[in-house]
């Protein structure tokens, strides 16, 4: 049975003007899979802003590229490896890292940072613990050996990810403007060269698997998951970058999803040329592979490149130095066709452009309300012990320290990491310049389940606020759209609303989206995940010692830039309080005023870059009380008096955006800056040693030793893993 619909099969016949061969059918199936063709999302992705003054390369290439000044550019992108990570967590996650790294260095950039957005089912299920441990060690295995620091990320636990964990990997690389390479097969007569690992049967149909729902049979698909070799990838990186320097390489593309098929037809399509290859020349590590298998294999650590005719040897020499295979497998032609031979016999002959770019596009029905199961009305609730509530939230999977995870990642290799995991944003310096890159990865399935549009906007705002809190100016973004089955209108409506919300917010914050990934069919046995768009946003700053979260000294003024914010019971239903304390979810996500948010971000950047704050931390999950507890992680707490009319649960734990906590010796300067930007700046307390006390009009709401707050938050994840192990 073909993965193509009857309509799509007809289109194949029209293009070929005959029946497809088995190999051709396989090629069309993968290239026109959701994963490779974006056939359900493409018409909506066009709504995203993709241009900006710094954008050198937008969507469509292996990664987006932006200019950061001094003749230097960065390439970055996010990719999902959700389905493989469920079937085989370790290899699935490892090859997810490998794939996105190749996307970066195939463009000529050296990867200098990785971040991961992870979603799992609750750790009370032993199976979810195994998936978490497998995914984390897979990421560590690949990134650490390859030698790229994993500098940040996020990890969230919700029942909707029980049978469908999400593994989204972001990577960023750096290079000079004149070192950029494209995946284009230009120059008729130029040799097409295969480099890297040998081709095996692993990963066949990976792209199509990622384009279908999970069923009980999915577990049988383990052979579809690729096996990664980070050592091979490290050699491939060094060899590719060295070979690029010879000047003999015309175009290059990695073999990722859909392997040799995708790299050949895309390189040809982009250049408007044809490619002829003979599969007998492809290095193979298994015997008896048929053309179908060789074309569809997703064996890792392989690249396809086009060299200048006559200069092949220069390329071979570099790859042989690094102990890698490099062989000519074909030629660039002017036919516009992908012609695949096996020992000389033609087994596929397909027009490149039609194959790569003319996949059917679907405007799937979405004229319905986005699916949601949560009620709109708030339940009755009233806290009996606010300190205990705070401790509960700090110990919850989403809010607790992710130290257990990030200590397994090498986050300091390459000696660029100014701020690693655990901060509001990660920061890596660019050596030989004065510029550093701040980056933030964020998603919120919870907010998006309540309103995909508002949730997506909140995510963009949060990422940009994270960057601004360390003093960086947000400049560009990449997105990973994780959704359920787009053939269901109420799921398609989620996707459309999220894209539209994201587009509006990215326009507002001037962060064009330079590329990304769409992962649909995240459903298991008919249950869709929550709509989970993940954003990765990068910002620029001058290289300097980083602004960090913890209070540093006693007797400093604690200020809340942006003010206490407002919230009603309806807007409280997506908070960590609702989740961790009440075990409920309702209503709508926090309200966002884009203009106010942007002004708060401008103000905090000026505060931080002016040197007026000793610490800064933006408010997000868990609201003000959690942010204060996080600021108190190094022994200095605070005495805070709020003076608010809001009820205590809301005042302490609402997650209204546009707020940043700072400690300072210069409150007047911060008030001056706040006035300049027409935002609030409240003096809410004073730092002190040892305790966190939060009062309202002299009524004590929270009073706790900072050690207790820290211990609960620091050890929660490890405790959950040990308690339920075995």
């Amino acid at each position: 049975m073909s993965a193509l619909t009857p309509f799509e099969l007809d289109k194949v016949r029209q293009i070929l003007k005959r029946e497809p061969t088995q190999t051709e059918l396989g090629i069309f199936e993968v290239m026109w899979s959701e994963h490779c063709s974006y056939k359900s999302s493409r018409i909506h992705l066009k709504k995203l802003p993709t241009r900006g003054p710094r954008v050198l390369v937008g969507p469509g290439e292996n990664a987006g590229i932006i200019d950061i000044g001094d003749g230097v550019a960065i390439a970055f992108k996010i990719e999902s490896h959700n389905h493989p990570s469920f079937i085989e967590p370790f290899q699935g996650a490892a090859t997810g890292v490998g794939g996105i790294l190749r996307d970066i260095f195939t463009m000529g950039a050296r990867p200098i940072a990785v971040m991961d957005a992870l979603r799992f089912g609750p750790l009370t299920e032993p199976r979810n613990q195994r998936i978490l441990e497998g995914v984390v060690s897979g990421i560590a295995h690949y990134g650490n050996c390859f030698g790229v620091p994993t500098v940040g990320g996020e990890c969230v636990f919700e029942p909707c990810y029980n049978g469908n964990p999400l593994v989204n990997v972001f990577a960023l690389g750096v290079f000079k403007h004149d070192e950029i390479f494209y995946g284009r097969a230009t120059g008729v007569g130029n040799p097409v060269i295969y480099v890297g690992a040998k081709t095996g049967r692993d990963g066949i149909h990976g792209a199509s698997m990622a384009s279908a729902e999970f069923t009980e049979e999915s577990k049988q698909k383990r052979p579809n998951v690729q096996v990664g070799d980070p050592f091979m990838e490290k050699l491939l990186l060094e060899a590719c970058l060295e070979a690029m320097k010879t000047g003999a390489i015309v175009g290059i593309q990695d073999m990722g999803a859909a392997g040799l098929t995708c790299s050949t037809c895309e390189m040809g399509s982009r250049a408007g040329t044809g490619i002829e290859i003979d599969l007998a020349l492809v290095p193979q590590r298994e015997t008896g592979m048929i053309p179908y298998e060789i074309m569809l294999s997703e064996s890792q650590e392989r690249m396809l490149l086009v060299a200048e005719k006559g200069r092949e040897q220069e390329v071979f020499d570099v790859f042989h130095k690094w102990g890698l295979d490099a062989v000519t497998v074909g030629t660039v032609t002017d036919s516009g066709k992908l012609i695949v031979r096996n020992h000389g016999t033609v087994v596929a002959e397909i027009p490149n452009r039609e194959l790569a770019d003319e996949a059917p596009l679907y405007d799937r029905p979405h004229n319905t309300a986005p699916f949601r199961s949560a009620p709109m009305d708030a339940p009755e609730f009233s806290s009996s012990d606010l300190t205990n509530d705070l401790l509960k939230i700090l110990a919850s999977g989403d809010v607790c320290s992710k130290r257990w995870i990030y200590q397994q990642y090498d986050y300091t290799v390459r000696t660029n990491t100014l701020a690693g995991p655990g901060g509001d944003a990660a920061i890596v310096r660019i050596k030989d310049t004065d510029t550093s890159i701040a980056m933030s990865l964020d998603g919120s399935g919870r907010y998006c389940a309540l309103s995909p549009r508002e949730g997506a906007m909140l995510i963009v705002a949060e990422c940009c606020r994270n960057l601004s809190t360390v003093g960086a100016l947000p400049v560009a973004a990449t997105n990973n759209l994780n959704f359920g089955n787009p053939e269901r209108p109420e799921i398609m409506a989620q996707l459309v609303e999220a894209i539209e919300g994201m587009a509006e917010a990215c326009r507002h914050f001037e962060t064009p989206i330079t590329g990304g990934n769409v992962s649909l069919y995240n459903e298991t046995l008919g249950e869709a995940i929550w709509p989970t768009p993940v954003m990765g946003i990068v910002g620029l700053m001058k290289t300097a010692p980083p602004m960090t979260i913890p209070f540093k000294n006693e007797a400093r003024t604690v200020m809340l830039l942006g003010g206490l914010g407002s919230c009603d019971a309806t807007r409280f239903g997506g908070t960590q309080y609702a989740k961790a304390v009440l075990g409920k979810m309702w209503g709508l996500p926090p309200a966002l005023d884009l203009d106010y948010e942007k002004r708060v971000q401008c103000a905090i950047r000026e505060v931080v870059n002016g040197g007026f704050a000793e610490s800064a931390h933006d408010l997000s999950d868990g609201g003000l009380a959690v942010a204060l507890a996080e600021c108190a992680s190094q022994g200095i707490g605070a005495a805070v008096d709020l003076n608010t009319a809001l009820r205590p649960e809301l005042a302490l734990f609402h997650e209204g955006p546009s707020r940043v906590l700072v400690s300072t010796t210069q409150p007047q300067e911060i008030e001056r800056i706040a006035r300049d930007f027409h935002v609030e700046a409240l003096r809410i307390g004073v730092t002190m040693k040892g305790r966190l006390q939060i009062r309202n009009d002299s009524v004590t709401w929270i009073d706790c030793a900072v050690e207790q707050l820290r211990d609960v938050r620091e050890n929660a994840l490890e405790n959950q893993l040990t308690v339920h192990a075995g």
Partner: protein
Amino acid sequence: MRFGVVVFPGSNCDHDAWYALSHNLGQQAEFIWHDSSSVGNVDAVILPGGFSYGDYLRCGAIAKFSPVMAAVKKFADEGGLVAGFCNGFQILCESGLLPGALLRNRDLKFVCRPVTLRVETTHTPFTSAATRGQLLRMPVAHGDGCYFADERTLDMLEKEDRVVVRYMDNPNGSLRDIAGICNERRNVMGMMPHPERAADSLMGSEDGRVILESMVRSLVTA
């Protein structure tokens, strides 16, 4: 001073060591390719961290057969300074230039975090610029850093004042908290932590400089 930084396939701290030596310390530093039969005209050799040859079989087990290691041995036999950090330490143990072995971490997991080390002896060219008991903060990043040797060897290392640095907060289960040791002749040193990652104030600590500066100082006075 001229430092040679060995590059094995899979080395990934080679550039960091080179950068710390050349940019942070202002020394000359060059790379030595793994199939070189000589270390060339250098005053000291660094075996950097990473995953040499993928660390297949066992960390450092394949690297010891590389041509450059024969040259490094010869260089060390002639009294040349050789320092191995992280994977470099593993390679030195595998090659027999240092006693003992690095086993899987106690928690069976890769660990990356800053640790505090105590300088146990200044009677080495790698710590001569430090003071005895000085505390140094720098990162570890390894999966196999648990130092192991038999009791007799451990006693000997202590008796001969060859434990160079100890962990104050042992991250990997190393016996007797050993983070770094030197050979009998005191010209070969291996340590699991990364001084080259703590040579620049922007990285949060410059404490690693004292190791590299000691080497420079020893070479000047030699």
